[in-house]
């Protein structure tokens, strides 16, 4: 029994850290995300729907501790909408003048509330597995966006001959295939305000778009600045080369 327990613990540690676990998994298919293109941008609608999926589904187990509610303004939510979303969460503040910690509704300046107070509590609530923080998840995996989306739609019945350990689930794209996270997306899991049909594939795409933006919120500004700088350098390079030709014109070298 103790051996089993130790094995289960070891397995959960192993499985809770996907990129690190040994085992072959097929490369994630290219989902053709607009933001993966060299000059691509994020689909605002998908970002907002993706935030809804995160809020209503993922955030039950996964924190995003690097995100603040004010960041939601950047995906097109109005200030009052963002304030209302923040206020729907209770966060711990303090100590107050009596020296006691207290709960208050979150403000725009607060970080996203994490579902668990610490990693131990997270493990205790998840069969020993630690749901990773999702703030930079697409930067922290190879081909991150395609991988996350593939993982979310990659739940299958285990192929014949493969035994899935107790509390584990079979996923085609997870390294080692045995993942502690159950399949959480089912058709109609959330009701989109904009009327989009909430299929599993749609939700996976939307939440991946949201996570990819959260991992690199500067992406659009960065690419726009890059284009300007490359245009500038092209002109400067032309002038520099023309000047060089002129300076060297009467010198054989």
């Amino acid at each position, binding site marked *: 029994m103790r051996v089993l327990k130790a094995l289960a613990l070891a397995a959960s540690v192993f499985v809770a850290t996907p990129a690190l676990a040994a085992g072959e998994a097929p490369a994630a298919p290219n989902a053709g995300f607009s933001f993966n293109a060299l000059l691509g941008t994020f689909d605002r609608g998908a970002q907002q729907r993706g935030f809804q999926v995160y809020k209503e589904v993922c955030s039950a187990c996964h924190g995003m501790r690097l995100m603040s509610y004010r960041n939601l303004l950047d995906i097109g939510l109005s200030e009052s909408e963002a304030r209302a979303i923040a206020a729907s969460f209770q966060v711990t503040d303090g100590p107050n003048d009596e020296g006691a910690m207290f709960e208050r509704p979150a403000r725009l300046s607060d970080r996203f509330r994490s579902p668990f107070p610490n990693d131990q509590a997270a493990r205790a609530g998840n069969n020993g597995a630690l749901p990773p923080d999702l703030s930079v998840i697409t930067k922290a995996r190879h081909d991150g966006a395609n991988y996350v989306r593939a993982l979310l739609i990659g739940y299958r019945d285990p192929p014949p001959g493969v035994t899935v350990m107790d509390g584990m689930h079979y996923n085609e794209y997870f390294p080692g295939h045995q993942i502690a996270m159950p399949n959480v997306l089912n058709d109609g899991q959330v009701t989109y305000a904009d009327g989009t049909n909430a299929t599993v594939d749609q939700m996976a795409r939307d939440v991946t778009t949201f996570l990819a933006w959260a991992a690199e919120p*500067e992406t659009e500004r960065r690419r726009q600045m890059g284009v300007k700088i490359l245009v500038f350098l092209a002109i400067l390079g032309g002038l520099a080369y023309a*000047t060089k030709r002129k300076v060297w014109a009467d*010198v054989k070298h």
Partner: protein
Amino acid sequence: MAIGLHDSQVSNPVLRWIDQRLPVVTMMQKEYGTFPTPRNFNYFWNFGALALINLVIMIATGIFLAMNYQPHTAHAFDSVERIMRDVNFGWLIRYVHMNGASMFFIVVYIHIYRGMYYGSYKKPRELLWMLGVVIFLLMMATAFMGYVLPWGQMSFWGATVITNLFSAFPIVGPEIVTWLWGGFSVDNPTLNRFFALHYLLPFVIFGVVFLHVAALHITGSNNPLGIEPKGPQDTLPFHPYYTIKDSVGIVAYFALFALLVFFMPNYLGHPDNYIPANPLVTPAHIVPEWYFLPFYAILRAVPDKLGGVLLMFGSILVWFVLPWLDTSKVRSMRFRPVARIFFFLFIVSFFVLMWAGGKPAEQPYVIISQLATAYYFLWFLVLLPVLGKLEKPLPLPESIAAAVLGTKAVLGGGPIPQAVAAKPMEKA
């Protein structure tokens, strides 16, 4: 030597007042204005200037990063992400610094291999070359410690693997490792001292770069022909000829730099370094940054730990004695038809090592690494000394001007601009 004001030629009265008391204007004019430079440089001679610019960029961005970075295991990872998200243009500063390290190594590798191909290390430039090797070693130490600072998984495990190399030394090894760590594992004291040293070493590099440039201005530059300039017809004043030629290279360099920073900032990094460091979970493959891969491959090519460590350090230390290993009288590989073939094979072995270093330590990569390592050392320790004696080099041109202009034109001398020709150049 007479004591008194310097005899300044500067016409602006304010500048002249300064120049008479501290002849910086005269010095700049002499070292970067009229400095006699071989007229036949190709674009490979841009890379020294590029490396200096890269160093300045790294120091400038690094200072701003240090204003916002927290060298503590509990805060380092999040403070880097805070820079990316909440500091004004923090993402730009950090991505420039991060990709700047890669650009620095690209530039410096080209600079080093240019020196090897054209024999720039040979007499009288041995010390110039050795100072360059010192700079490269300092760069490696700085880059390694910088990679530890974000405190991601690769930071932590890279630091663990590399510091553990010292444990291979008999008797004192484990003591050295404890001393490096400041404890019994890679932990907060390690991160703290790495941050302090990562801030210090670039200024040490700057000092050695100054010596490198000072030594260069004593011997003058080598050139693609590898023969010394014999007179004014062989040289051009540094300005405007090479200031403008360097400018062209600088713009091209900035374009590649911008492509990395703005469109593929994480391409050269490893995704695992965006997972916060966790001493309990070892990544499946611990790999260093790409620029260390050739040396990492040499380390892993040897089954014995101490042997691997010695060979890895030896693969760079051998550069120090390169001026004496190469017995050929001819500098440039242009005139060494046999050595040239083996030199290109040496370049190939370096790239093979770089490729194999990124692969897991299993077959066939181990045997490939071993073969490439063997050739790497064969080149330095056997081929170079032997070929210098056996090979019959092609005839060298009479002078740079003769090669460039054809023998007839040499008598006329190079077209030195009036203003420059008016001031006789002192040989430093």
